[in-house]
C-alpha cells in the first residue's frame, strides 16, 4: 500500500486568490477514481497542483506520493517518480516528432533511475512504440508527425494516452480527456485507459460529463464544489449526477463550503 497518492487538506492560491480550499483525496494503484464537478470548481487546478505547475502556490496541506512529500518537488521529478498528467489542452512541440519525443522521454525516466543508462536501443524502442500504437489503434505514420502540432482534438487526446502507455506511470491524472472527442475517439481513448489500467496503475479521471464513465468504470466518484471534495461514492454517484445534475449537490452543500 505504499504506491499511493494522498492529498491532505490541500489549499492552493494563484495570484493571491484561493482556488483549492482543503482537498482530501486518496488514489491507490489499481484504482480508478473520477473527479467530477461543474466548471470552475478547481478540478483542473488540482490536476496542475499535483503536477507542480509553477503558477500555483500551495498555502497549506500536503501531497504525498509513494510516501514522499511532493509539495516542494519540481514537476519533472514528480513525473519521473511516476505521476502523469494527460492535459486538457495538450501543447504543440513543433519540430519534435512523436517518436523522437517518446524515445527521449523514456530515456529521461530511465536515466533518472540509472545515471549510467545509455538510452533505449532503437529496435527495442520501435517495437515498443508499434505495440503501444496498435493498442490505441493509431496509424504508424503518426509517430513521424511533430507532437500535437496541427493535430485534431482527437489526435491530441490519443497522443496523450500514447504517452501514458509508453511512460507507464503509477498514477495517471486525465484532465478532461473526454472533452472535444467524438464518440469513436472517446471509445478508443477509453479502451486505451481500460487496457492500461491494472494493479500497477491508479487513474484519476477529471471530467464534468458522465459520458466517459459509460466506458470506464470508476471504483470511486468524487464531486468537487468550490475548491473542496464534497461528495464521494461509488459508480452510482456518477449515474445519479447524470440524472439529477449538480443542483442537488449545490443545495446540499450551500453554506457548508467556505468562501
Amino acid at each position, binding site marked *: 500500500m505504499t504506491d499511493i497518492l494522498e492529498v491532505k487538506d490541500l489549499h492552493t492560491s494563484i495570484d493571491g486568490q484561493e482556488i483549492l480550499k482543503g482537498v482530501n483525496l486518496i488514489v491507490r494503484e489499481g484504482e480508478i477514481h473520477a473527479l467530477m464537478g461543474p466548471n470552475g470548481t478547481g478540478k483542473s487546478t488540482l490536476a496542475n497542483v499535483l503536477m507542480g505547475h509553477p503558477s500555483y502556490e500551495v498555502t497549506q496541506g500536503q501531497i504525498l506520493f509513494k510516501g514522499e512529500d511532493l509539495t516542494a518537488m519540481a514537476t*519533472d521529478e514528480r*513525473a519521473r517518480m511516476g505521476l502523469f498528467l494527460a492535459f486538457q489542452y495538450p501543447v504543440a512541440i513543433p*519540430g519534435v516528432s512523436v517518436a523522437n*519525443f517518446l524515445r527521449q522521454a523514456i530515456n529521461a*525516466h530511465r536515466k533518472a533511475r540509472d545515471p549510467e543508462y545509455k538510452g533505449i536501443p532503437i529496435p527495442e524502442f520501435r517495437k515498443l512504440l508499434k505495440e503501444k500504437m496498435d493498442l490505441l489503434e493509431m496509424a504508424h505514420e503518426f509517430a513521424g508527425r511533430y507532437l500535437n502540432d496541427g493535430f485534431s482534438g482527437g489526435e491530441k487526446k490519443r497522443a496523450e494516452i500514447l504517452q501514458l502507455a509508453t511512460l507507464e506511470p503509477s498514477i495517471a491524472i486525465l484532465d478532461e480527456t473526454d472533452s472535444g472527442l467524438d464518440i469513436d475517439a472517446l471509445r478508443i481513448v477509453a479502451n486505451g485507459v481500460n487496457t492500461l489500467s491494472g494493479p500497477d496503475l491508479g487513474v484519476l479521471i477529471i471530467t464534468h460529463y458522465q459520458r466517459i464513465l459509460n466506458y470506464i468504470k470508476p471504483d470511486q466518484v468524487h464531486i468537487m464544489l468550490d475548491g473542496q471534495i464534497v461528495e464521494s461514492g461509488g459508480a452510482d454517484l456518477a449515474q445519479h449526477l447524470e440524472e439529477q445534475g449538480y443542483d442537488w449537490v449545490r443545495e446540499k452543500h450551500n453554506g457548508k463550503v467556505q468562501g
Partner: protein
Amino acid sequence: MSSRTVSRRKRVVRKQEAPEFSFTREDVEGISQALGEPDKLKAQRMAAWEKFESLPMPSTSDEPWRRTDIRGLDLDRIKMQASTKKPVASELLQPLVAESHGALLVLRPGHTPEFQEEENLQEDGVVFTDWTTAVREHAEIIERTMDTIVPAEDGKFAALAAAMSQEGVLLYVPAGVQLQQPLHSIFWAPGTDAAFFHRVLIVLERGASAVFFHETASPTESEGQTVHAGIVEISVAEEASLKFVEVQNLGGHVWNFTHERAKVAREGRLDWIFGAVGSQLTKTFSDLDLTGQGAEGRFSGFYFTSERQHFDHDTQQNHLAPDTMSDLLFKGALVDQSRSVWQGMIYVAPEAQKTDGFQANRNLILSKKARADSIPGLEILADDVRCTHGATVGQLEDLPIYYLMTRGFPREEAERMMIDGFFAPIMERIPFDGVRERFRRMIEAKLGN
C-alpha cells in the same frame, strides 16, 4: 570595471578618424608575383586594389551597414602575416556529407596546402585544387569566370578580398560529369592581429553535378583582433546541380566580411546551406541570381550567436528569368548579449513571370539581452508571380516547457528539446547526416557557454 569603461571610450573617439588598412599597392603586387599570375589575372587584381582604394570604409550611414558598426575594429594592429601553426581541429577533418570524401583540401594562409584525393578526379577533367595550383594550371578557367560573379565593385571588402587573396579553392566540373563523392575543403586561419583572405570559385558546366562542403574556421585567440575577408563565386550552368554547404566557425576575435553570389542558368539547381557560429562580427552578402528559365535555388541558413557576437547577413534572391523558383529559410538562436541581423530581398524582374519566391527568417531569443533584427523585403516587377515572406523573433514559452517537464524532462532538457525543435525545419533541409550532427554539436557548444 570603471577603468575599462574609460579605455573603451577612448578607443571609440580614436576610431572616428576614418581608419584604413595599412596594406599597400606593393603588397598586392607581391601577392600576384608569388602566385605567378598571368597578365590578365594580375590586371584584375590591381583593378580590385584600385577599387578598394577608391571606396570609403563602410559606415552605419550606408544602408546595408546600418545595423553593423565596425568602428571597434582596430585596423592599426592588423598586419599581413602567415597563420600560426596551430593544427586544424580534428573534428573539422571528418567527412560530413558521406562516409568518406572524394577529396579533402586544407588551406592555411602562408603555408603549403594539404590535399588528399580519394578519387581520381582528373580522369573526368574535374579540377578541385588550391589557388596557387589553379593559377598555374587552370588560369583560363579563372580568367573566364572570376570577378564576373562577384565584381570588386560590390563593396569595400569584396575589393579587398579580390586584391589580397592568395589562398583559395577552385572547383571546376566539366559538362555532364556527375561527381559521386562529396568534396571537402577547409580554410584554417589561426592567428591574431592578422588579416586573412581567401576566395572560392565554383564552376559547374552544363549538366554537371557536385556536392561540396567548405568550412572557414580558426581557434579563438585570447587577445587582439583578426580580419577575414572572402569571396565566394558560384556558376551553375544549364541543367547543372550543386549542393554547397558552407560553415563559418571562426574564432571569437575575428571580424569576418564576405561577399558571395551564385548564378544559376536555365534549369540549373543550387542547394546552398549556411551554418554560422563563429567570429566576433560577421557581415555577409549572399546573392542568388536565377538567370535562366526554370532555374531553382534554395537557401538554408543556420546560425547561433553567443557572448557579444554580431552576425549580419544580407540575402538577395534575384529572379531574372521566367519560371524560376527560390526558397530561403534562415533560422537562428541567440544567447547572452549577442545580436543578429537578417535582411532579405526577393527581386523579381519584369520578364520573370511565373516565378515562385519564398523567404522566411525565424529567430529564437534565449536571453533578455540578445537581440535579433529581421527585415524581409519584396520588389516585384512582374505581375504573374507567387512570393511570400515571413519574419519572426520569439522566445521559449513557459507552457511547452511545463508540458515537457510533466513528461519527466528536467528544465534544461525541455529547453534543449524546444531549441532542437526550432531548428528542425532547417535540419530537414540538410541532406547530410554528418552536417546535421555537426550543427547539433554546435548548438550543444553554444548552450554549454
